[in-house]
C-alpha cells in the first residue's frame, strides 16, 4: 500500500523501533556471536578475529568523511556485494568495515578498495590517528563557530600517514565540535578541535519579545549575566557583557541573540583526554591553544598546530602512553616548552572550581 497524503493515518506504523541487530549480521558473525577468542591486527586497517569454533573473520577498516552521499553508499554496497556477501558495518568513529570469512578473499577486497581512487583509505586501527568524529559545522548547524567537515578534511589530509600506519606510541583520537554545545562530546579526546565564539550576543530588541521566552533566556545563562529590560516599547533583555563566557546557551533559547561573528569566532585546541579505563582513568581534555582564527578553506594554523603537537608526542612519548599520560609524565610546563605553544592567561582557569586546577605544591620543573 503506497503512502496516501490525504490520509496519513491509514496503515500508519509507529514505534516499531530499529530492525533487530542480528537481522543484518553476516552468517559468520551470527554463528560466532559471543564466541570470539582473540584478535590481531595484520597490518594497519586489517584485523583478524578468531573464534573458539576456529572460524576467522577478516575485517578491512576504511576511513570515511562522515558526510556521505547516496552515491558513495551505493559504491560501498557494490563492494559489499562483490566481496562480503552483501554485508557491511560502520564504526562509532565513522569508519566503514568490510568483513570476509576467508583469508583468500582478503587481498581481492583490499586491491579493489585501493583501485577506487582515494575514497576508501585503509587504516584507523592500533597506534594510529583514528578517524575524526565531528559535528555538522557550517554544512548544517545553526549555532556553529566553525565548519566541521572542511576542517576535518584539512587535518586528515595532513595527518594521512598516521591514519594508515602504526607509528604512534598509542592511538590518538581527534574530535571536533563546532561550538561549546559539543554535540560530538569532544571533551575527552586526545586532541579536540572546538569552535569558539568571542563576542557577546547582539540583542535584537525589536525581535526578542516576539521570538523568545524571556524568563527562559534569563534562566539559561550560567553566569546570570542576563536581566529583563524594557527598551522603548519593547520587552527585551540586557546583558552584562563582562560576565559572558560565550557559551551560546542564550542563543539556543532565543534566536534574537545571535553571537556568530566572522572575526570573533575561531578554534580552540584541547589535549590529553581519553575515555578508556586502560592504565589511568578517563580524563578530560585540557586547553592547549585558546584561539586560532577561522582560516577557510584549508585552516593552516589549526592543521599545523595539531601536527606539531602530534609529532612532538610521537617522538617523545613512551609506547602505550596516550597523549594525556605523556603530558602528565613530563608536566604541563614541559608540554608548552616542547610544543612551542605560548602559555597565556586564558590557560589559567577562572571558572567554577578553578582552584582545583591551580598548582598547590612546590613540585614543578624549571
Amino acid at each position, binding site marked *: 500500500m503506497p503512502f496516501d497524503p490525504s490520509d496519513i493515518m491509514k496503515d500508519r506504523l509507529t514505534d516499531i523501533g530499529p530492525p*533487530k541487530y542480528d537481522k543484518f549480521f553476516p552468517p559468520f558473525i551470527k554463528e560466532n556471536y559471543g564466541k570470539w577468542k*582473540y584478535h590481531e591486527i595484520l597490518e594497519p586497517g586489517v584485523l583478524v578475529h578468531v573464534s573458539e569454533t576456529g572460524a576467522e573473520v577478516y575485517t578491512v577498516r576504511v576511513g570515511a568523511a562522515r558526510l*556521505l552521499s547516496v552515491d558513495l553508499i*551505493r559504491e560501498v554496497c557494490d563492494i559489499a556485494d562483490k566481496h562480503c556477501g552483501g554485508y557491511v558495518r560502520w564504526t562509532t568513529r565513522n569508519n566503514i568495515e568490510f568483513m570476509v570469512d576467508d583469508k583468500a578473499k582478503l587481498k581481492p577486497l583490499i586491491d579493489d578498495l585501493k583501485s577506487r581512487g582515494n575514497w576508501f583509505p585503509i587504516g584507523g586501527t592500533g597506534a594510529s590517528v583514528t578517524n575524526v568524529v565531528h559535528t555538522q559545522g557550517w554544512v*548544517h548547524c545553526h549555532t556553529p563557530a566553525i565548519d566541521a567537515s572542511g576542517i576535518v578534511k584539512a587535518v*586528515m589530509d595532513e595527518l594521512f600517514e598516521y591514519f594508515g600506519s602504526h607509528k604512534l606510541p598509542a592511538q590518538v583520537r581527534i574530535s571536533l565540535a563546532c561550538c561549546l554545545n559539543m554535540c560530538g*562530546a569532544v571533551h575527552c579526546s586526545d586532541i579536540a578541535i572546538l569552535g569558539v565564539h568571542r563576542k557577546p550576543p547582539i540583542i535584537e530588541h525589536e525581535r526578542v519579545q516576539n521570538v523568545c521566552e524571556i524568563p527562559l533566556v534569563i534562566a539559561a545563562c550560567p553566569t546570570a549575566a542576563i536581566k529583563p529590560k524594557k527598551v522603548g516599547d519593547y520587552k527585551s533583555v540586557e546583558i552584562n557583557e563582562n560576565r559572558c563566557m560565550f557559551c551560546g546557551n542564550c542563543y539556543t533559547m532565543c534566536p534574537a541573540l545571535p553571537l*556568530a561573528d566572522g572575526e570573533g569566532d575561531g578554534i580552540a585546541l584541547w589535549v590529553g583526554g581519553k575515555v578508556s579505563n586502560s592504565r589511568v582513568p578517563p580524563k578530560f581534555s585540557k586547553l592547549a591553544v585558546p584561539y586560532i582564527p577561522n582560516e577557510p578553506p584549508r585552516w593552516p594554523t589549526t592543521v599545523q598546530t595539531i601536527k606539531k603537537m602530534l609529532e612532538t608526542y610521537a617522538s617523545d612519548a613512551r609506547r602505550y602512553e596516550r597523549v594525556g599520560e605523556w603530558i602528565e609524565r613530563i608536566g604541563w610546563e614541559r608540554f608548552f616548552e616542547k610544543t612551542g605553544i605560548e602559555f597565556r592567561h586564558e590557560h589559567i582557569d577562572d571558572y567554577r572550581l578553578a582552584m582545583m586546577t591551580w598548582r598547590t605544591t612546590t613540585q614543578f620543573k624549571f
Partner: protein
Amino acid sequence: MALKHATPMLDELEKGPWPSFVTDIKRVAARKPMCEDLLGLLEMSYEHKEGHWKHGGIVGVFGYGGGVIGRYCDRPDLFPNVAHFHTMRVNQPASKFYTSEVLRKLCDIWEEHGSGLTNMHGSTGDVILLGTTTDQLEPIFYRLTHELGMDLGGSGSNMRTPEGCVGKARCEWSCLDTQDIIYDITMRYQDELHRPMFPYKFKFKASGCPNDCVAAIARADCSIIGTWRDKIRIDQEAVRAYVGGELVPNGGSHGFEKRKLDIQKEVIDLCPTRCMEWDGKNLKIWDEDCTRCMHCINVMPRALRPGTDVGATILCGAKAPILEGAQLSSVIIPFMKMEPPYEEFHSFVEKMWDWWMENGKNRERLGELIQRLGLREFLKAVEVEPDPRMINTPRFNPYIFYDPADVPGGWERDGKAYRERHHA
C-alpha cells in the same frame, strides 16, 4: 556539468588524500538542485566565516515529538533549494551492521525524497538523512516504516537513540550483550524516545568492556560498561609465547613485526595496581588487587581474557559542557548482572527517571541535577546503598548534612534548659 555556483574555496577541499566530502556532494549536485545550493551556501559561509542556517523550527512527523530537526537557510533569496533543509534521524540497528539490500533501499528513498546526503552516522549513532522539505517528511516516514522496517530516532528533550559497541558480534572482550541491551532499551522505551517528556535529553550508551569503545563514560547520562568480578583467565603458554617473541604484542597495534615482549616494562610496570608478577615462567595476578583496567589484556590478547562472572558497572551523569561544565559519569551501581529480561535495570531506570522528572529544572541534565541535589539524594531515589566504589576519596570538608532522624532526640531543643546550664 558546470554547477550553478562557483565554489573556489570549497574546491580547495577536493585536494589531498583523505576522501573529500566536497567531491562527494558535487557528484550528487549534478542531478540535485538541493546539493547545488548547499554548496553555494557553504561557499558563502567560507567567505563570511559565519554559518547560514536559521535557528530551529519545529517540524516532525505526526504523533512524534522527536526524530526530525527543522532547518531553514537564512538566505532563501539566493539559495531557494535549501530554503528548507530538515534532518531526519533514523534509528540505526545496534552496532551498525547492514546489508547492501537495506542500504540501497534507504538510498533510493532518500534519492527520491531528500537531498541524497547523509551522515553515517550522527553522534548519537543514528543514520542522519540530511536535508529535505516539510512535505516530504510523512512520505519518508511511511516508506521507512513500511518498506524497511525502520523507525526514527530521538531528538529534543527525550531519550536519545541508545548506542552500543560492536560487542559480542565481533569482540572477544565483551562482558555484555551490548546489542541486546541496547535493543531492549530502545524497544522498551519507544514512547520516551519519540515523545519528549523529560527536562532535557537523556542518553544511554553500552560498552562491552572498560576500553569503552563508544565513549559511554564521557557522553551518556547512563553509561553501561561491561566488567567482571572474578579472575582474569590466563593461558600461561601464550604468555611465554609473547615473552619469547612468537606472538605479536598488543594485537599488532604497534606493527606486526615479531619482537620479544618486555613483560616487566610493558605490562607489569604499567599495571596501575602493580598486581602482577613474572617469575620468568609464569605470570601471577593478584586478582583481588586488580581494577580491571584492561591494559594487560590489551597487550596480550591471546594470553589473557576477562573473567567469566561478567556484568555491568552502571555509571550516571556524563555530559558535554553546556550548561554546568563537562562531567564524566559516576559509579552508581558497581556491578549488575545484566541478564535478560533486564528487570533489575529497568527498575533502576524508571526510579532514576521519576526522580529526574520530579526534580529536574528545564534543560537540566541528570548529571547536573545529581550535582545540585547531591549523590546521596540520587542514591536514595534509586534505592542504592552507599559503597566505597562510588568515590575516589571520602569527603575532606567537614560540612555534613545530617538528617534529624539520625541524631538522638532529633533537632528539637529546649532553650530554657540550655540557659539554665549556661547563663547568657
